């Protein structure tokens, strides 16, 4: 363990190691800052430099656009900077990257999705929002339904939330994201549409699709079989461990860099092994391309008592900065 390492032992939890830097809570978050920097470089590069408008840069932009949305997810669970101001500025940058206010994740993901429908209220991003027989169409169409569900729900939630400054930050993020995109459109409409807006929407809609990929066919009432994991090493390196979804639902407070260790220790021995997929690409091909029918949804027992604890943890994380 390096001299920077700090051991934190919370009551009732496993000890966790955190490698702080002067700027970041966790050194591993440098990867997230690099991802967002590369993404911004590709967007502005393509907008301002015609030579950048080629297949390679565009493919990279689409890819890191999706990762930008993954960073939103991680950052909204735990701000990556030690400075609150920097965290809020970073939210604005991320919001521009995905063309939606990052703070929307507090309600839509941290509070609602992490509960599934335990409290009798629907998960806005539940897989049953789409029902085409040909499953590929569900994957394509999913954001068209879940996106509006989410923003309607966030708007309702925003009117009553007790979280300090949420409304203000939410508005600032919208003004920044839509304002900057609007300015780019106003100066050069077609270039901004093709090389900024399309990548933005690709990432934002991609992260919504992940809900379908990670939960479709799973039993959301089960303690362990509510999520599908993608456990490949390369995949999780570039995705900041976004493949370990079961442990993320169980322990929303864990830093993403700790997810593999906890998955291996807590989830792998208990989960239905078929929900630990080695490769997302193979899963996508098998499920949506080579198969024309949607699989059955597994059914299990009642909701476990630990679900309440998990919900409380997700809620506490969501309401802290």
């Amino acid at each position, binding site marked *: 363990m390096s001299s920077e390492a700090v051991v934190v032992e919370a009551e009732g939890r496993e000890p966790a190691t955190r490698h702080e830097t002067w700027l970041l809570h966790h050194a591993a978050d440098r990867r997230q800052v690099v991802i967002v920097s590369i993404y911004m470089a590709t967007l502005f590069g393509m907008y301002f430099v015609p030579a950048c408008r080629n297949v390679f840069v565009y493919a990279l932009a689409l890819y890191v656009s999706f990762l930008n949305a993954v960073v939103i997810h991680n950052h909204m669970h735990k701000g990556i900077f030690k400075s609150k101001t920097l965290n809020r500025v970073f939210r604005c940058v991320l919001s521009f990257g995905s063309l939606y206010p990052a703070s929307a994740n507090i309600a839509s993901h941290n509070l609602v999705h992490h509960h599934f429908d335990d409290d009798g209220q629907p998960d806005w991003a539940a897989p049953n929002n789409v029902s085409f027989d040909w499953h590929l169409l569900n994957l394509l169409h999913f954001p068209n339904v879940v996106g509006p569900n989410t923003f309607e729900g966030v708007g*309702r939630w925003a009117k009553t939330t007790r979280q300090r400054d949420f409304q203000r930050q939410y508005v600032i993020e919208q003004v920044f994201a839509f304002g900057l995109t609007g300015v780019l459109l106003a100066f050069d409409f*077609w270039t901004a549409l093709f090389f900024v807006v399309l990548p933005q929407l690709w990432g934002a809609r991609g992260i919504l699709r992940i809900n379908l990929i990670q939960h479709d066919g799973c039993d959301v009432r089960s303690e362990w079989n509510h999520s599908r994991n993608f456990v490949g090493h390369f995949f999780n390196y570039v995705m900041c461990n976004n493949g370990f979804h079961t442990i993320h639902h169980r322990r929303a407070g864990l830093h993403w860099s700790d997810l593999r260790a906890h998955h291996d220790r807590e989830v792998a021995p208990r989960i239905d092994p078929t929900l630990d997929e080695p490769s997302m690409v193979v899963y996508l091909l098998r499920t949506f391309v080579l198969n024309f029918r949607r699989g059955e949804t597994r059914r299990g027992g009642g909701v476990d008592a630990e679900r309440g604890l998990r919900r409380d943890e997700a809620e506490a994380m969501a309401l802290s900065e």
Partner: protein
Amino acid sequence: MLTPELMGFGALVVLWVNVLLIAAHAWKHAQSLARASRALGPLEPATVVVGAGDGGTFAEREIQQTGRALVRGPARILFLDGAARTKVWGGVLRMGGKDVAVSSSDALVALAPSDAATRSSDERWPETYRAASTQRGATTTLRQAVVTGATVFVRARPRHGDDNLVLEAIYSHDPRRDLARGARLSVAFAVVEIGVAALLTAVALVPPVFGMVSTLGGALLLAFFLAVQPIGTAVRDRARPFYERRVDGAVDGVRP
């Protein structure tokens, strides 16, 4: 090199795939509403003569709701539906001029958000408001009851051995009209959506492509793409039959 023409073609493909998916979703919803209408079976109007439950209740629905107070503005609590349960207490129905006894059962109880309702918190505003002003919110039970004198639509079959009926479903309004209206709305949306997308695509392709008119068409297509998704889900919600709509609700009072 990714030319504007190539990118424009790609953008139109993406747009049209989604336009057609949204239309197909609406069409599919219309089909499911038509199927639900056919599956209703024979419905008969009836009047509740006697309700065997408390206060002459023939059937009821209870919804667990969570209420949260507005942060700004009036002292208002917004309620959201949670888990629901229904119950038929039974009693006597008048159908076709004849009084028929109905036993208690777990038959389908289909009520509308507009049907009269009471909340368990109605008499405790100060406590409810205080609880609703926390992040966790106030919990309450909303109760809707079909009582003596109510006009309903029922599906029932005779019980073997006597003149009583076995109730299969009770609706507070005629669901056939509602289902037909929902199906028409969904189909109309699908047609209009495709029509508007086609019109705007034509504007975006007015020569010279990427000229002023074409750019206006492109801007309208972008706005259309962003707007048609929430419009699609709003139409879906409006097309739902009354008994599938959320009750939710808002209650105003005085800040304690």
